[in-house]
């Protein structure tokens, strides 16, 4: 379902497209000695579905908190649809699905939604968001008796109430089983198809790949890559071949097609490559390498290599 959308400025009157949904300018945030966010610049346009991808501790949640006005940056500026985060929240322009907590166990699902709805100037009907989040059948259930997945759908329903322009999700599927995860994303995807801007933080590459148009890779409090899912995926794919090879000819190894990095550690050599088969063939046919091991390069390794590259440049 495609639809043309007018972007509106909440102060009144329709305005031209061009006011970004999110504008982050030189954002930094430290907690004591820990520099959680070290200068993030990012612009998200209305209608984009953006994944904020990074390992735990990359600064994703801190950045999300600053977008939502839950914490204040040490330096830099946050604008949500041209407004301060708090202003945007009070007008229902932005809503969020947080990772955990944020629910009262002794209310029912429907009561939670009615309470939340009562706080906003304008909301969608409770029955409608129950339906869209797929929890109409458990409306009368106490929140404390709901499964993790059901609670997450309730958080999603709560976020839908103000009919926000921007929906922010912070690691929304943590602790869900595969089925729950798939159903949850199906609901989000359906919602995004209606034209809502969606930004979600995740440390699952598969989630970013499957659901985002754009992936922003974050590591050590910085954006280290920003592009389509395919572009970012190619950055983090590949394998590492490890072998015992005294006196390895490093330039020869680097010349193998697909090789990205060669590291010598004593008698061992580690070759990172997009095509490990070629590396193995070379090592076995042309060198005295033994004890060969092939490991899939995890996201974690990719982040490390990207970050060190970033630090060098």
């Amino acid at each position, binding site marked *: 379902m495609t639809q043309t959308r007018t972007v509106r400025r909440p102060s009144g009157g329709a305005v031209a497209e061009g006011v970004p949904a999110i504008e982050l300018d030189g954002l930094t945030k430290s907690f004591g000695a820990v520099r959680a966010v070290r200068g993030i610049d990012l612009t998200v346009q209305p209608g984009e579905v953006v994944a904020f991808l990074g390992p735990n501790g990359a600064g994703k949640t801190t950045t999300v908190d600053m977008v939502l006005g839950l914490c204040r940056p040490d330096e830099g500026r946050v604008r949500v649809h041209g407004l301060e985060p708090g202003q945007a*929240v009070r007008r229902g322009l932005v809503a969020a699905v947080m990772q955990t907590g944020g629910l009262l166990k002794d209310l029912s699902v429907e009561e939670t939604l009615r309470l939340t709805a009562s706080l906003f100037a304008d909301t969608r009907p409770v029955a409608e968001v129950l339906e869209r989040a797929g929890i109409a059948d458990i409306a009368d259930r106490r929140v404390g008796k709901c499964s993790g997945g059901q609670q997450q759908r309730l958080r999603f329903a709560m976020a839908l109430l103000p009919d926000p322009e921007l929906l922010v999700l912070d690691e929304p599927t943590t602790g869900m089983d595969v089925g729950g995860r798939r159903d949850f994303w199906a609901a989000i995807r359906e919602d995004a198809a209606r034209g809502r801007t969606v930004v979600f933080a995740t440390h699952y590459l598969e989630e970013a790949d499957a659901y985002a148009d754009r992936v922003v890779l974050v590591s050590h409090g910085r954006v280290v890559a920003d592009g389509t899912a395919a572009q970012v995926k190619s950055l983090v794919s590949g394998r590492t071949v490890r072998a015992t090879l005294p006196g390895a000819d490093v330039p020869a190894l680097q010349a193998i097609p697909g090789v990205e990095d060669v590291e010598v550690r004593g008698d061992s050599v580690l070759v990172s490559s997009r095509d490990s088969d070629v590396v193995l063939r070379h090592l076995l046919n042309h060198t005295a390498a033994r004890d060969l091991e092939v490991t899939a390069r995890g996201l974690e390794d990719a982040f490390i290599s990207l970050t060190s590259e970033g630090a060098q440049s």
Partner: protein
Amino acid sequence: MTTADLTATERSVPPLGGFNATLLRLELRRMLRNRRTVVFSVVMPVVFFLLFGTGRSYSDESAGHGNVAAFIMVSMALYGAMLSTTGGGAMVAVERSQGWSRQLRLTPLTSTAYIAVKVLVAMLLGGLSVAVTYTAGALTGAQMDSSVWVVTALAVWVGSLVFAAFGVFMGYLLPSENVMQILGPGLALFAFLGGLFVPLEQMSATFRTIAHLTPMYGLNEVVHAPLTGDAPGWTAVVNVAFWLAVFVGGAVWRFGRDTARV
């Protein structure tokens, strides 16, 4: 049905910082749904009154403008109101530990409106506790001049604001879901030292001196004054003013720090 259906003018901030009747009603229902809260705040004071206030040799003795049963009824109503309002205020701790306060920061509800609701719900529960204890008293032989019924009930209810402030203060100070299990023994001690259970005149001089400094003493003296006909001593009045200032000041201080994190 998309966001585009809403016109720009509908993107507004709600009045009164988000405070509304639905919120108040749901909060009250939530409070009454908690069995432990209801037992401690409403049932227990009545049980204590029936145990210690009625059918005793002293129950019908005069206590000024009423009988001793009425005197004990006022004490127990104050005890119930103290438990109710402290518990209501301390809900802040439960909601903080469950992450609800954080969730509320993603809504237009202002911190001030939030605290106003907490205090209001605490006071409504306190009012219920006083009403139930007074009804039990009226049905089981407590006697007072009719104006004294009204004046003491109001004094107990309004006075329990001190403990609503105490509850909010503790709610911000103790980040625990089981805040009332921590506060419960403390409140019992306050009640005991305040002379709610045993008249302080029966205690040693040293004990009395210590008791006069505790937060329940002054309020207990003040709410009984219309019944006994004795004006409350200045120590009692100073006691109430002092503890009210401490608890409100503490609550405002912690509340300010909490919202400053935004």
